[in-house]
């Protein structure tokens, strides 16, 4: 399982920076919002957490498709299945590599963007922690949707339509947690709700992704 994660990371490192598209998108989105909203620091600082969450969600939506479809198209998926690796281990490994390749770079730039928006330190910390806890859920939804849609050639739009409704609750609780940090720290109720959501998504998501992959293998 770790071998697969490491190989996915190696593949991404050789894709001449394709894995950085998400970060680039995040930065462009931020710059554009600053221009659109006017450089009023008080406005930007209040809207900061919401803008960062929006940017992360959009950036993830753009990145989901790559993870599984390539392996399905070049036959890697069926070989992995026949290598006797359980499909749930495959799903877990894909989630891990996607988190490292797609989510982690976004988290790394988030504090700088928050600083750029003129957000206070506790606000930045709150948003970052909420993202750390909430992004696994977002990632699971997107990966599940892309596993369901593997067999379709151009599935980008469908993927977004399927994923967005699932992402909304996470985003609501995530924003709540980003704001709640200043008052109650990581043990604020909003953080507990967010963590619960993420744990539930990962717990149910791994077998669900495995089932979707199995269906794809049997019908292709």
């Amino acid at each position, binding site marked *: 399982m770790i*071998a*697969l994660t490491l190989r996915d990371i190696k593949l991404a490192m*050789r894709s001449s920076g394709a894995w950085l598209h998400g970060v680039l998108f995040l930065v462009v989105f931020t710059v554009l919002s600053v221009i659109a909203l006017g450089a009023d620091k008080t406005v930007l600082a209040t809207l900061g957490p919401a803008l960062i969450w929006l940017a992360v969600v959009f950036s993830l939506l753009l990145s989901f498709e790559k993870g599984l479809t390539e392996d399905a198209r*070049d036959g890697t998926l*069926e*070989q992995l299945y*026949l*290598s006797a690796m359980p499909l749930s281990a495959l799903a877990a490994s894909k989630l891990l590599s996607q988190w490292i390749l797609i989510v982690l770079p976004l988290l790394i730039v988030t504090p700088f963007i928050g600083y750029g928006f003129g957000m206070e330190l506790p606000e930045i910390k709150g948003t970052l922690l909420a993202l750390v806890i909430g992004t696994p859920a977002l990632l699971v939804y997107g990966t599940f949707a892309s596993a369901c849609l593997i067999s379709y050639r151009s599935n980008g739009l469908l993927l977004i339509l399927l994923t967005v409704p699932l992402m909304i609750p996470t985003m609501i609780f995530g924003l709540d947690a980003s704001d709640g940090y200043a008052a109650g720290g990581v043990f604020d109720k909003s953080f507990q709700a967010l963590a619960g959501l993420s744990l539930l998504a990962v717990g149910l998501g791994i077998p669900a992704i495995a089932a979707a992959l199995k269906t794809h293998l*049997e019908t*292709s």
Partner: protein
Amino acid sequence: MTFADVRLNISGASVSRGDRIIVDDFSLSVKSKDLVWLRGTNGVGKTSLLRIAAGLARPDTGEITRTFGGAVVTAPQITAFQGHRDAVKPSLSVYENLVFWARLSGRSETVDRALLKVGLTGREGQKAGTLSAGQIRRLALAQLWVSQKPLWIMDEPAAAIDLSGQAVIDDLIAEHIAGGGAIILASHAAPPQRAGIRFVTLHAPEEARL
């Protein structure tokens, strides 16, 4: 490498695509040291049958049983599959590609031997993306070999491959059969001159009824 007794039984399998029946009531039984050669015109369902035999697809009706050393097993435990899609990553080197699959089977020490067998020694560091189609097929054959599974399912192994590559395939097959493995393959290439090949010719269901 020698294998325990391996058996695959397909009985009464039918496959349809939409409302068209591709394979109707197909039965096949394969055991250790068998080499089954599927023949038939394009679109007659060879690939569908091979995917079923490999456990990658399920027939609409019919029973499939697999045993290894007398015990009932699942497809991934005994099957290695070589299909049209070769699972080769162009941005990884020949060695990196192969060692990944060898590690998954827990046999990374077999990589050098596999490369020697398929004639890719000396190209370990070359990116798979710069190989020719025939060389990629050789790499795919090496991937099949490093899995060390008793049942090989091969779909057109000789596609894009030259004469010496054809000899490589014949050698791999002969060695696998001699070691107690079993092979089901579909190919339009001329079969090697050797005894013990079981030919199975598929006909389209409509044709069979005439």
